[in-house]
């Protein structure tokens, strides 16, 4: 006796959250090699082949103890799993454009379930996103997914879904004007949190920030996403608020690209380290203000010129794409690592950065106060986030 066909269709589409997770995680619903070990006696007899086989997804459900809970048999579980998998496969096409899921007529799904389907489909693994963050979302990267899968232990199928999600969101919002987060939310119906994460991913992919270097490994996706949000808010064209009136259709995308003019202007900051008087004055202002307040005062005093040179030079180099990509590497090398080697407490870093930024306002000879604030305001936030172990 072989089951040739076995389906269940409800007027309201049944969604099993656990099975959905297995499907998203890329476990096969079809007969295949059982991942991990065999599970006590729970095998399905496939009559046609005459061998005992069980799909990965079913094996995992068995392992969750569902058979004991419900008294069902493995065959029932297999049939149930396949029904859900078929449903998910049919839904996947709609999930690629979530508004379609809301308007389609084929599956009657309560709104709360629709939201759950979308949110989970677009959720991603921290381990995976760290591997591709800042990489070009191209075929080339897609080829590396095999290695990423091996490295992270995430199934290739799941890697592909996550990568395709990144790419799809990127493609849709790439050419769009207006707020990046809003655009993502509108076209993919994601929660605010997830939309912000995607904004960061898209922003990093677009600017190709290097995040994979060994010295950046200690940083989490959250760290980068935090920085991305600050940079989108302050350093892009959209941030200035001039773009909506910009009649030039060739203008840069507002939230995705850094404001080129701003980057050019950053060269002007060089005077802060190039002009020796200005540098000394800056140092003395900071030191005066912080004396007795910092635990690492002497280290700071000794290192001030190096740190300041580092920060200002990072700014001055941002005209080159190559240096934009290395922004985080530079920040870690020029600022985070020196602080770390001298064991600066986070609070001291905060006090220093506040004072370092504010003191510039008292430098009479310096004329680029607004520019400095736009640069340093964001950088200060980023640096504080980057300073951890």
């Amino acid at each position, binding site marked *: 006796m072989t089951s040739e066909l076995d*389906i269940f269709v409800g007027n309201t589409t*049944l969604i099993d959250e656990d099975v959905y997770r297995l499907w998203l995680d890329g476990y096969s619903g079809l007969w295949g090699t059982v991942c991990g070990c065999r599970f006590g006696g729970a095998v399905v007899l496939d009559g046609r082949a005459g061998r005992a086989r069980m799909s990965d997804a079913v094996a995992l459900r068995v392992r969750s103890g569902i058979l004991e809970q419900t008294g069902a048999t493995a065959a029932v579980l297999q049939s149930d799993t396949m029904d859900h998998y078929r449903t998910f496969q049919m839904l996947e096409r709609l999930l690629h454009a979530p508004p379609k899921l809301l308007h389609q007529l084929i599956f009657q799904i309560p709104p709360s379930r629709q939201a759950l389907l979308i949110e989970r489909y677009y959720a991603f693994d921290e381990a995976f996103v760290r591997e591709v963050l800042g990489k070009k979302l191209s075929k080339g990267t897609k080829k590396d997914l095999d290695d990423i899968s091996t490295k992270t232990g995430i199934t290739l199928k799941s890697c592909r879904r996550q990568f395709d999600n990144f790419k799809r969101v990127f493609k849709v919002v790439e050419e769009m004007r207006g707020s990046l987060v809003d655009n993502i939310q509108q076209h993919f119906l994601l929660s605010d949190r997830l939309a912000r994460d995607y904004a960061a991913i898209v922003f990093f992919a677009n600017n190709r920030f290097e995040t994979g270097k060994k010295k950046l490994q200690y940083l989490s996706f959250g760290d980068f996403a935090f920085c991305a949000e600050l940079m989108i808010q302050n350093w892009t064209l959209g941030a200035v608020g001039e773009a909506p009136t910009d009649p030039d259709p060739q203008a840069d995308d507002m939230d995705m690209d850094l404001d080129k003019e701003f980057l050019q202007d950053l060269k002007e900051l060089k005077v802060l380290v190039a002009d020796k008087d200005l540098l000394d004055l800056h140092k003395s202002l900071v030191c005066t203000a912080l004396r007795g307040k910092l635990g690492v005062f002497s280290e700071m005093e000794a290192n001030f010129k190096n740190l300041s040179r580092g920060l200002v030079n990072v700014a001055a180099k941002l005209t080159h794409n190559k240096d934009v990509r290395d922004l985080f590497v530079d920040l870690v090398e020029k600022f985070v690592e020196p602080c770390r080697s001298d064991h600066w407490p986070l609070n001291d870093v905060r006090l220093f950065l506040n004072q370092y930024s504010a003191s510039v306002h008292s430098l009479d000879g310096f004329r680029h106060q607004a520019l400095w604030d736009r640069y340093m305001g964001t950088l200060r936030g980023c640096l504080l986030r980057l300073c951890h172990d």
Partner: protein
Amino acid sequence: MPGKLKVKIVAGRHLPVMDRASDLTDAFVEVKFGNTTFKTDVYLKSLNPQWNSEWFKFEVDDEDLQDEPLQITVLDHDTYSANDAIGKVYIDIDPLLYSEAATVISGWFPIYDTIHGIRGEINVVVKVDLFNDLNRFRQSSCGVKFFCTTSIPKCYRAVIIHGFVEELVVNEDPEYQWIDRIRTPRASNEARQRLISLMSGELQRKIGLKVLEMRGNAVVGYLQCFDLEGESGLVVRAIGTACTLDKLSSPAAFLPACNSPSKEMKESPLVHPPSHGCRSTHNSPIHTATGSRLTQNFSVSVPTLIYTGMGSGSAGKEGGPFKALLRQQTQSALEQREFPFFTLTAFPPGFLVHVGGVVSARSVKLLDRIHNPDEPETRDAWWAEIRQEIKSHAKALGCHAVVGYSESTSICEEVCILSASGTAAVLNPRFLQDGTVEGCLEQRLEENLPAGCGFCHIPYDELNMPFPAHLTYCYNCRKQKVPDVLFTTIDLPMDAAVIGKGCLIQARLCRLKKKAQAEANATAISNLLPFMEYEVHTQLMNKLKLKGMNALFGLRIQISVGENMLMGLASATGVYLAALPTPGGIQIAGKTPNDGSYEQHISHMQKKINDTIAKNKELYEINPPEISEEIIGSPIPEPRQRSRLLRSQSESSDEVTELDLSHGKKDAFVLEIDDTDAMEDVHSLLTDVPPPSGFYSCNTEIMPGINNWTSEIQMFTSVRVIRLSSLNLTNQALNKNFNDLCENLLKSLYFKLRSMIPCCLCHVNFTVSLPEDELIQVTVTAVAITFDKNQALQTTKTHAEKSLQRASTDNEELLQFPLELCSDALPSHPFPPAKAVTVEKASPVGEGNFRNRSSPPCANSTVGVVKMTPLSFIPGAKITKYLGIINMFFIRETTSLREEGGVSGFLHAFIAEVFAMVRAHVAALGGNAVVSYIMKQCVFMENPNKNQAQCLINVSGDAVVFVRESELEVVSTQQPAANCQPSCTGGEVTT
């Protein structure tokens, strides 16, 4: 020019990409009705075209309005080559033809293509202006309402129930050998869809004409079926019950949620029908059989069984003065009818007087080509023959009417089994005719109808019974005789006194048969049929006894024919009727009594059976009150009484000898084990696993013993096909395979729906077919309805004391039960205690509870929810309007089966699409639910070698508008909700 049809094409959305180069589509629409076609402009380069067309107007006869569907074709414009069809929408405009239903059809319809399935949607508005036409020779029957529901629809009142209407139309099938032919894609299947649409329109119109002739205004219990006869053509046939219905002007009073919705009928006041004077009685089929045609057809009529208790039928005689009078009266009302049949399964109060038992007839026919489609007399004659047989069976049971009547066919190659079945009954004549037959008898009739048991009383004469049966005085009223077991095809009457809960009972059977041709084949089949009927009947009886119950409702026996086997599947809902005697146990008798080990084995089996019966009684809460002899005081013969008492003793003991003595040959149900076959049978009895804790199932509308439904419902269809390995094709192996198939299917359903516990699967409808040599296909459609466990302490009005008893035991029993079973060898109740267990006992009454459950977390969905249910009602809601019948036929085909996920992927997608199209049509009519939904056909064929598959699905139901009772609540909170809610008084306070 009696009608003007107006159509406006508004917009399209989600269209497929038809031009690969631009990734866009240049779509336009053709609107066709009859022979007239209009076109919209081409909307260039868009997947969401906005045509916003003018009103296309068709001036047509109302006859055409009824027959023709509106055809909407969406095409992609191509300058250089032929335009590509994207897909089609067929809209049945019948609902617009009667005043009370929908006034406009407007909404998004899925664009359907037989190869690609749904490809986007189109927004269409349809209106009809109907001019009154009093032409008495007219061929149209506009205005006759059709209902699939097999009871009087909720917002109507039956003035007269006229009776049986039937009609069939035949045609050549544009395509039946799809796999073998070379053809242009989709062309012939589209022709087929169009033809069937046209034929069912025509059929409906003709049925309507008959109804008008009978001076009715509606058809209730309308059942339309297709016979795909292959080479010999396509038959579309329909049966129904003609009625005169009155719309209830003021909405019926508010019903508390705890009430079973069917009680609503109570509110329809019984008014004597107005006298119509002389009436045409011409409702016979138009076509009469001609002898010459008949002789060409080989036909075998199969002797059929009459199911009441046991035994088969023979002619009965009149007897008893009261019965004779009653009979006379009903007879006069019914004799004008050729076939006093009713497709209804639930009736207005007082309509059903007595129930005799199930009557059925089958006949095996050889199909040949229908030469002249305009004169389908052969098929008419076949059915007339069968109906005649049913009628005479009913007569033998002392009944003049057949209720719960249905007809079906099973076709394999050129052999066709025609089946008809129903329940012989005696009806109250006052619904059937005008006032002329009503006399002083009326009063007497009323007096003699005790509530809750009247229908169980035998209609036939006890001294001259049509078959051997055991009669006792009714356990309820003690006045009339009742049989020991009652089988019926109808729903449980709502006033029936029932003890405990009911359950789904199935008999499953396979019989091998030799492959043969033509006459030889038909003979072989007709030789097998009586044995199958007998075995199905025995199985049903055994299983019923095993459940400790004494009556079956909703019995449906399906016999399907295949190349090399016959399958029988009977489904029914078993209940314990308070009026009927306690069923005796099952006793096993061995053939070789001297063999010690054998004896031991037998007694072990006996013990197992007794245990199962006891367990089932507990599970279904069957605790009939012990009746002491003093109370009885009726002239029931002594010996019978003693045997009953003895039996109840012996049930708890294992002493076989005592059983033998007390039961005698007559009363006990003795299973003789004389060979391995019989052993198998007994084993198979015990393999049926009860549903897991928290689940109940039945194939009737409502579950006896549960009437506190909450509003969550889930209708579903499940299909399974298994391939038998040809090596072990013995009857036993077949039976086991088939049994496993059905049991596994049920297990899967319970698993899938576990989140709805506590819930009941209602209207579980199994159909079995044999699409190919070694394939068995089982299709199940049912609805799962949640109920509130804490309100299961519902009273049955007529049995106050019983309910008290139940109320005290209800909760403990349900909780104890899983524990008890765990220590047992039988598979236990595996599901963890349901969530509702934790709900406090003092929780507020129904409305409060289900309001919480029903309200969706967010309501910003753009697509309105359409509920679907095979039941005639929606729990916790009130149907306010019937919008018309939904009767849809779809074909889906593929030439890339593997790419579409194999057979399962293909059919899964198709059924989902069918649901979507039904929902869209209902929504466009302005409705929010389909009731009495049924999937009448699901014919699946595959040719894996060619990577092809094809499926035909036919569904129907009634589109309705319903309003949640919680929304009505505002209006009617003042009305007492607590009068039916004794266990929950004061619950309101806790809210």
